[in-house]
């Protein structure tokens, strides 16, 4: 069990390593990437709950990012899979609650519940995928820097940065604690009793607080003032404008015109 957690832990860190690469996508000013991702997410989320066809062209964006940034698809898919239970639980009852048949495929009738469930999954893949791609192509601290430059309150941005940093501290401490527990719990075969679990949880909180304090001290010792600085130099130039403008126009166009049915009619020759 603990090896699985270990691996998941290193995988999170792997996103930051991916962000160190030097590709056209990585070199773009982070502000352009953040804003584009925001427009993308809003466009995807704002569709009606039964929308499926309209969502499909949006996969163009992640595909382009993966290509431009030379990012590993299988790794990102695994990350998506890891979070997917949350979304599946949110949508799993739709097919039971919404039984009205909306589409008739020959003898099989597909209910609104199934369609909205499928639509939810698509949206999840698109939005969470976009967020993962943003982190993998930019790095979390650089995203925070971009947010700050875009005018987000500094307190909020630092909270975000610390939250991310704290995640690693928390997971690291839990791994060590679970390891120590499983080495000394022979009867339960690593199963954690309720009482012990509560104690461990409390202990974990105290330990991580201590550790976070030491890391904060290390940051202060190295002249951290609350402003985020990174070594890579960014400039919002023509390429950024083109990236942001081009993609945003594309998303908004997809949102408000029925491009798929238009293309379908065009290729089928139906006027």
């Amino acid at each position, binding site marked *: 069990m603990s090896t699985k957690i270990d691996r998941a832990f290193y995988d999170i860190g792997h996103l*930051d390593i991916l962000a160190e690469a030097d590709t056209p996508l990585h070199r773009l000013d982070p502000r352009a990437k953040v804003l584009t991702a925001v427009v993308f997410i809003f466009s995807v989320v704002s569709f009606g709950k039964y929308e499926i066809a309209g969502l499909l062209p949006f996969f163009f964006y992640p595909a382009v990012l993966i290509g431009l940034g030379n990012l590993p698809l299988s790794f990102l898919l695994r990350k998506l899979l890891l979070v997917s239970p949350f979304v599946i639980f949110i949508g799993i009852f739709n097919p039971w609650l919404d039984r009205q048949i909306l589409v008739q495929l020959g003898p099989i009738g597909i209910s609104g519940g199934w369609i909205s469930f499928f639509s939810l999954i698509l949206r999840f893949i698109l939005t969470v995928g976009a967020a993962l791609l943003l982190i993998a192509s930019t790095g979390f*601290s650089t995203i925070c820097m971009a947010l700050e430059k875009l005018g987000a309150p500094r307190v909020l941005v630092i909270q975000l940065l610390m939250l991310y*940093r704290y995640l690693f501290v928390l997971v690291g401490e839990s791994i060590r604690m679970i390891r120590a527990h499983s080495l000394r719990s022979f009867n339960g075969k690593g199963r954690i009793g309720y009482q012990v679990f509560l104690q461990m949880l409390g202990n974990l909180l105290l330990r991580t607080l201590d*550790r976070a304090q030491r890391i904060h001290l*290390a*940051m202060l010792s*190295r*002249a951290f003032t609350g402003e985020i600085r990174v*070594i890579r130099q960014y400039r919002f130039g023509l390429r950024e404008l083109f990236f942001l403008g081009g993609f945003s126009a594309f998303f908004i166009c997809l949102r408000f015109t029925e491009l798929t049915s238009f293309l379908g009619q065009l290729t089928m020759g139906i006027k």
Partner: protein
Amino acid sequence: MSHHIVETKNLEFTYPDRTPALRGVSFRIQHGESVAIVGANGAGKSTLLLHLNGYLAPTSGQVRIGDYPLTKETLREVRRTVGMVFQDPDDQLFMSTVFDDVAFGPLNLNLPVEEVKARVDKALATVGLIDLKDRPPHRLSSGQKRRVAIASVLSMSPDILVMDEPTSGLDPRARRQLIELLAGFKHSKIIATHDLDMVVDICERTIVMHKGEIRADGPTMGIFEDAKLLESCRLEKPLRMQGCPVCGIKPTDQPPPIG
């Protein structure tokens, strides 16, 4: 700050849970001196170090770094002057690559990018890790992590190095390399440690702490020859100053030269 003096006057500190940690600690460390702070577990060594860069504020007494007292206004300058190397390098390294970690301090000092890069390269070359600069710190060995932690402090060009247990957890070879590295530094050094043999190699002066007080302060060799003092402070002579348990040969009076 031309004179890199570290001075404490009657430093008292009590933790919020009312555990007294420092009781009237006073010393003065001159420019270029290497001073060891030794003492049993819980003697107050780490608490003392945390006062030297202003992380803890004394309950009473004063810390002076250079010619200034340590106050809120001088804190930033003091933290640049006093480079602090932590006991656990995992606490100190928090960025995703070695390069970023070493660059963190200089970037926060608002230096131009070219200067930052030059400083990072120089610091990594000093500790001999220039080849690892694109690696994530958490994948390195303990010895390498420790040296990255030292580089991350060196890149800020501190005048005074403060270290907490620099040799703990290192294999003998890595320990030896670290000692040679430290011996080569011209900075003032304040090292809290249990590794008394390292103290013999690096520090000409030793401060012995016991229960939050300074028990002795003087030349290292003089202190380590005082068996009574060492025992009353839960310490022992450095191994090389003890007789050989196998062949029974008594130690020579002078320690062998470094290296």
